[in-house]
Structure formats: C-alpha cells, structure tokens
C-alpha cells in the first residue's frame, strides 16, 4: 500500500529516474565529478579500472550515474553500458590540449552509437581551475560540437575541485530530461 502511494506521488510530482553515463578520456575528472555531485565534496581518487556507480537525487530526478574508467584499453568496454541510457555527461580536461583531438574522436564515436541515439549530451569543460585551461568556446570548437545533429546538447565550464559549474549543468540536464519525456 505504501509503495503504491509513493509511486502515485512520484508520478504526480514528476519524480523519475534516469540512467546517465559519465564518459571521457582518462584523468578527465569523471570520478571526482561523480563524488562531488553525490557527496558534495572532493574525494581523493585513484584511476578507475572498471566503473563506479552512484545515485544522485536532483530536481526530483533520481539519477543513476555510471562513471566508467577512461584508460585506452578499457574504453572499448563502454559500449557494454550503453543500453537504456538517457544522458551522457562527457568530461574533458580543458588543460590537456594535447589530447583534445583524441577527446573529440572518442566523443564523436560515442555519438555514432545506435544505442545512444536518443541520449542527450552534457559536456563538462572541466579543470577550469588549472592554468592554461581552455574555455567553453574553445572546447566547443575543439570537440566540434556544432556538428551534432538531432540531439540536445550543452556545454558548461566546470571545476570539480572548486565545485563550479557542475550543478548548473545538472540543472540543464534534469530540465531537458523532464521536458523530453
């Protein structure tokens, strides 16, 4: 009876669930972002070999956030997590200018995936706290975001260490997910 009542309330007030993948090259800051969103603090991380998954309640949406390891040899396994994904958070190290081309290639390869056709894309231009970090306009150009067709996307400048920009992005994401369904 209680469960039924909860479900009725949820549908009434728009509380829903979404499956989100956090992707990006190794050391982009995916794990730090995940735990910043979930715990509100910076944790010391080690490289993710495999994945981390946490649930984040935000704007009446229960986000199931999957943070997948970004090392070269485990990127091919990302596809195992693609089905039933509503959104992708793509994280870029804005100071790692040498690998922006790689970041772009991986990004567009993901967008080509049939299983992700319906997923919205949120790009975090992360590590804005580091000297030499490119801004959102430069990252937009480097990732060739203007080539994205038939998909909603947005980019935000973020610093996971300082907590800047993350929740603004999550606002956009939650609103987009709500309006899209």
């Amino acid at each position, binding site marked *: 009876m209680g469960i039924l009542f909860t479900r009725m309330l949820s549908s009434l007030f728009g509380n829903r669930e979404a499956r989100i993948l956090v992707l990006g090259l190794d050391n982009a800051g995916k794990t730090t972002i995940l735990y910043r969103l979930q715990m509100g603090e910076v944790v010391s*991380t*080690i490289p993710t070999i495999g994945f981390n998954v946490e649930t984040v309640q935000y704007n009446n949406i229960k986000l199931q956030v999957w943070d997948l390891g970004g*090392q070269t040899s485990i990127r091919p396994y990302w596809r195992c997590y693609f089905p039933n994904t509503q959104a992708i958070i793509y994280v870029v190290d804005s*100071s790692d200018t040498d690998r922006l081309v790689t970041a772009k290639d991986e990004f567009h390869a993901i967008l080509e995936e049939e299983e992700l056709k319906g997923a919205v894309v949120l790009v975090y231009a992360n590590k804005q706290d580091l*000297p030499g970090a490119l801004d959102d306009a430069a990252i937009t150009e480097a990732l060739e975001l203007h080539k994205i067709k038939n998909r909603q996307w947005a980019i935000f400048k973020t610093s996971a260490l300082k907590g800047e920009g993350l929740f603004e992005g999550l606002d956009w994401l939650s609103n987009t997910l709500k309006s899209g369904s």
Partner: protein
Amino acid sequence: MPSSQPSLGLRRVRELQSRPGNGRCVDCGRLNDPPEWASVTYGVFMCDGCSGAHRGLGVRLSFVRSVAADASWPGPHLRLMTSNPGGNRALNAFLAARGVPPRAAISLKYSSPAAALFRSRLHALAHRRPFRGPSAVGPQPPRPLPSDDWDDDDDIYYFQDSLSSRSKSTAGARGGVIRRNQSVGEDLEAELGIGCGGRPCRSWSSGSISAVTVNGSGIGGEMFSERKTEENEQLPDGSGSTGGGSLISDAVMAVSESFVQLTMVASSAVQSAANAVQTGTTELTSKVAQGGYDEKVNETVNVIAQKTTKLGQRTWGIMKGIMTMASHKVEEYTGDGAGWKMEGLEPQREIDSDGSAGTPRHKYITSNSFYLNELDDWDTDSPVSSSGNQKDGSNANKAHKVIEWDD
C-alpha cells in the same frame, strides 16, 4: 578490444619497469610488483594511490598513464619514458641533490623548480633537442650518467668545466671543485678561492700577489649553476658563454705571464739587496774585528744604511716599472673584454657578450651534461639494462649519447 600480443611500445615500457629501482613507487617507496602506473613526464613508475595524486597535479606537471590499461604507447610518450633509463632512482637522486627529498608531498615535489628542470631536460632529450646547461662549452667526450646505479643514498653527478678539467664528487659536496692555480713564485703564494664564494679571486698586496683562482663548481657551484640555467633561459643561445669563457681564460693567462715576469725581477732585486747587506755585514765584521774603532764602526753602519736605502729605492723603481709593464700587458690581452677590471676583487662583471652589465656571470665555470640512453640506441639486449655497467664509460659510450643542456 586489446590484442593478446603486447605492442612493441608496451614491451619497451615493461622492460623499463623491470629495471632496478622501478619496482618501488617513486613517491611512497612502496614495494609493488611492479608499480603499474607511470608518469610519462618524468619517466617514472608509481603505485595506484600515488598515481591519483599525480593526476591531480594536472597534465602539465605530470601526465599519468597505466602501463597495462593504456597498452598502446604512442611514440612521444614512449620516447619520454625511454629517455630516462634510470627511472625512479634517477629522478629521486636528481631532486634530492637539489634539496627535494624523495618522500616529499607529491604536490610540492613535482611543483618544485628542480622537477621543472628535470621535466625540461627530459623533454629536450625526447625531442632530440640539445639542452645546454648553465654554461656552454666546446664539445666534450661522452660521459655516462650512472642512472641505473643511482639510489637515494648514493647520488653521483658529473660536472665538466670549461677548462677541460674534471672532477667528480658526491652530492654532499655538490659538484667538483675545479681549481686552476697560477703559482707565481715562492713569495707569491696562491690561495684557493673557497672564500670567494665560487668566484675567481684576485688580490694585490705590496710584497705578494696572491691567488689567481678559478673555482670550478665548488661550494654552491651547483646552486649557481641552476641560477645560471634560469639566466640562460633568457639568452638567445649559448654562444656568449663560450666567448666569455675563452676571454677570461686569456685574461687569466695574461695576468699569469705578467706575474711570472714580475716575480723574476722582484726575486733578482731581493737577491741584490741581500748581497749588498751581506757585503756590508762582512765589511762591518772585519772592521769590528780590528777593534777600537767605534767611530769607524758607526760610519760603516751609516754607509750600510745608505747603501740599503739606495738598494731599496732602486728595487722599488724596478718594481714600479714591472708593475706598469704587467698592467699594460694585461690591458693588451683584455682589450676586447670591455670591462675587465684589474682593481680589487670584483668578479667578472660586464664580461658577457650580451652586454648585460652588472650581474656576475659564471658561464665559463661549469657545464652539466646529462647522458642518457637515446631512443634509437635502445635495445632490450642493451648493456644499459644491467646495472653495474653504467659507470664504465667505455661500455656506456656505445649506448649513450651526450646531450647538453641548452635552456
């Protein structure tokens, strides 16, 4: 999907990983088997915990890769790794010699100026750019960096001076003391320039001329070498260094020659005076021996006194002449040096070819050369991999190439 056959790059990194010193994390020292993470920026290996801290530094300070999970090692990364065959030991020894302990906090350790120097040098090596250090000198024969044998307690560095003298010392003494000492006679005692703080010292005194000293890299030599590195970064190239070195060398030779001449004349003058006194004394003795001639004795003493005064004046005249000659000679030799000063203890100010006056420069003193295994010579069967061979210059010459610092 990863291929079952390891790539050539991975095999090379695995070989580096198996070298002595790389079995322990470069930062915490934990014994892994072996550490699976590498900082490409320094060519070192670390545990997963420390790799997390490295990743937090940003890619400009440390670019971290997994040996296995980033199995495809692209050329630029591989070149950086293989440019530091000494791996963890080489980095820690390098930093320790510059006051950064191996177990320092990672954020401090890798943001230190010493780490920046190491980064620049490794980058230059990997890109086959010459990296000239504090001073530029002519071509030097290769000398191996005993990188495979380095550990935290036995830091050995080699320095070369522009005068082709060499010295080796432990990190405690920080660089060899190279001394060139022009001894100019029995009266003209030379002193070594410890008290001059690593700068050449010249001083004049009435009876003796002391110390034409070139202190190679002596106490604090390495410190100013690094300071020099910073200064050299602002220079267009190292050519000025060579010019400065040879100019000073010439000037030192000129001073030396003049002093030798001066010494010879002074010696002869002293000898004359001694002879005169001896003659006078003999005369006096003979007079006294005759007895009862007090007045005559007094007269004789007066005569001796007059003679000695004359001799003294003559000697002083000769000395003055020689001093003038020496000064002219030195001016001749240093005529191009625009600012070589003979007076006082002033170091080589204004001697630089770039005309930046007022700052003491010491370009001629040391040259740090860093010898590392070059990528093309790298081979899994190379003797580099066996520790103990590294200190043997003849052996290491085959696999090593001298790379000089240039920035």
